[in-house]
């Protein structure tokens, strides 16, 4: 058994206290340690992806206790890819935070950032539902600190709403876990997958309630209508690098839904039949519509980006709600795209803020550094709105083709296509007001152009989006392989439950 699988969790867990204790007053050392840690994390994650790419499921038993008694970490194609995506996103966000000096505007930015990474990595890697709850709490408590980084009344108020909403979500999560444990007597995901098949379909009330409670919790994280109200003001008020990192947090919810509802409660399971198809798809379609209408209606650029995140999560959930291998493969392709595009847009909105001191969508003096910022906004908006030639368009095509053979095809096509049109209009309006109408007014005072490192970070994210488009064939083949692995969970279950650990064989009496 190698220990590589736990490194993405252990590394930030050690770096964060090191930053607090050893480098408290030296922002330079903090930056070096933080960036070096994230680079090491990318290398580890790339190794894990390479290890999982041939379909092997890697298991790490904490303390060498065998599942279901011990806690396990599991690395398969899906979780390792999400870990790599998080690490890569974290690097660019960190570069931006350093370049724009956001990390100097409050204390402990880098330590909280590392704790946040630890929580996200843990949530992706764990194979135990209660452990998932614990890692959710780790990522949340770090995100509370990051959310109110640099202070300010509007930010604190949004922070209170964000914290309270998530506390309610955590309580709901515990209720769900309690009912699952009462019904099955285990919280290990692989063990649960076996035990729920043993439940008598005539007495499925408890497990149905538990499954619905659990999907509500994940829907809060993924900001699906009607549980999305926390997202717009939290993401808009959070510091830009933090909001960009939060782009992966909605995907944690989507990941949890994919994992739990393909492994534990698959769509063909008798005791919870009908749950996904009845409710998830309409909710996802409404999120998509509301998100894109919000893009058109927003009066500030940061709110516009926040609503586009809701809309893109709706798009992801439409694909997930089909619960077919093609749908999940399309959703996974779109998750990578939407994480990168959402993060890039949040950072670009901060470039705009740095160039003109506010984000109101009204005609104002020209943005400092307008040429570069406008170019980046143009590319990222094309990607987010799903126009050709970028990855948003390919992802949307994949989702449309996955939905083509279903009974709800008319609804899916109508809403996706009209929502795309609305978002194109919304982004076009925002871009032309900020960057074009600006020239009709004279600048009142000179504002400094954002630093070069900020542009490097944003350009890096945009370059990744372009790479995601160029290598779309390879990426889609890989996400298809992931979906196939998700829909054949026998290897996962066997690896987790059949690997012996400490005291697996009864010791002889002496």
């Amino acid at each position: 058994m190698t220990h590589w699988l736990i490194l993405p969790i252990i590394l930030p867990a050690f770096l964060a206290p090191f930053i607090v204790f050893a480098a408290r007053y030296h922002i330079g050392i903090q930056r070096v340690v933080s960036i070096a840690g994230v680079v090491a994390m990318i290398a580890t994650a790339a190794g894990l992806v390479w290890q999982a790419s041939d379909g092997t499921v890697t298991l790490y038993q904490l303390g060498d206790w065998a599942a279901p008694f011990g806690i396990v970490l599991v690395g398969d194609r899906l979780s390792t890819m999400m870990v790599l995506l998080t690490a890569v996103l974290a690097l660019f966000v960190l570069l931006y935070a350093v370049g724009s000096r956001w990390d100097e505007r409050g204390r402990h930015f880098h330590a909280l950032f590392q704790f946040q990474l630890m929580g996200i990595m843990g949530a992706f890697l764990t194979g135990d539902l209660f452990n998932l709850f614990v890692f959710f709490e780790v990522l949340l408590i770090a995100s509370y600190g990051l959310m109110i980084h640099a202070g300010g009344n509007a930010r604190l108020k949004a922070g209170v709403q964000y914290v309270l909403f998530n506390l309610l979500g955590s309580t709901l999560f515990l209720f769900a876990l309690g009912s699952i444990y009462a019904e099955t007597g285990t919280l290990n995901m692989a063990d649960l997958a076996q035990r729920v098949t043993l439940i008598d379909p005539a007495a499925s009330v408890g497990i149905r309630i538990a499954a619905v409670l659990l999907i509500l919790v994940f829907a809060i994280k993924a900001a699906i209508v009607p549980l999305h109200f926390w997202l717009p003001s939290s993401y808009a008020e959070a510091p830009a690098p933090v909001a960009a990192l939060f782009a992966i947090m909605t995907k944690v919810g989507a990941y949890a839904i994919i994992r739990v509802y393909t492994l534990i409660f698959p769509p063909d399971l008798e005791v919870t039949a009908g749950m996904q198809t009845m409710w998830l798809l309409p909710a996802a379609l409404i999120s998509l519509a509301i998100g894109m209408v919000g893009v058109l209606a927003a009066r500030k650029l940061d709110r516009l980006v926040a609503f586009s995140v809701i809309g893109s999560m709706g798009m992801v959930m439409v694909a997930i709600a089909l619960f077919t291998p093609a749908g999940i493969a399309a959703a996974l392709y779109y998750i990578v795209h939407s994480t990168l595009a959402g993060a890039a847009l949040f950072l670009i909105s901060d470039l705009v803020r740095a160039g003109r001191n506010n984000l109101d969508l009204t005609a104002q003096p020209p943005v400092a550094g307008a040429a570069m910022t406008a170019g980046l906004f143009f590319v990222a908006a094309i990607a987010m709105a799903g126009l050709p030639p970028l990855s948003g368009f390919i992802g949307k095509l994949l989702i449309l083709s996955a939905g083509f053979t279903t009974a709800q095809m008319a609804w899916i096509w109508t809403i996706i296509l009209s929502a795309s049109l609305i978002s194109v209009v919304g982004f076009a309006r925002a871009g032309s007001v900020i960057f074009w109408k600006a020239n009709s007014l004279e600048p009142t005072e000179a504002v400094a152009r954002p630093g070069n490192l900020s542009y490097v970070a944003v350009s890096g994210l945009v370059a990744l989006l372009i790479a995601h488009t160029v290598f779309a064939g390879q990426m889609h083949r890989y996400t298809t392989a992931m979906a196939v692995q998700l829909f054949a969970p026998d290897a996962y279950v066997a690896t987790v439950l059949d690997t012996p650990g400490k005291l697996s064989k009864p010791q002889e009496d002496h």
Partner: protein
Amino acid sequence: MELLVASAIGLLTAAGIYLVLRLRTFPVILGISLLTYAVNVFLFASGRLTIGAPPILTDATNYTDPLPQALVLTAIVISFGMTAVVVMIALGAYLGADDDHVDDRSETEDAS
């Protein structure tokens, strides 16, 4: 006993939800505390209620389920820490803006 525990959980949850809907920071935080108490008792009861039985291996014949007790301990610690964090943030927001409403007020916040 089951009836007593179940109604206690129900009562705590109902009171908690009522307080959360008051939309001022102090009642909302109290309500969330009540909800976490309710969920702690609920988790504890999810391993079935047994009286006077040990959770660890001894020479007894009757045992209670130890796992929910471990889960409750974790949940208590986490909810305790989270409540402390939310009290600090809410206090900061109240002292800064001189307003302890949790929701967005129509005159101070744009409708979007």
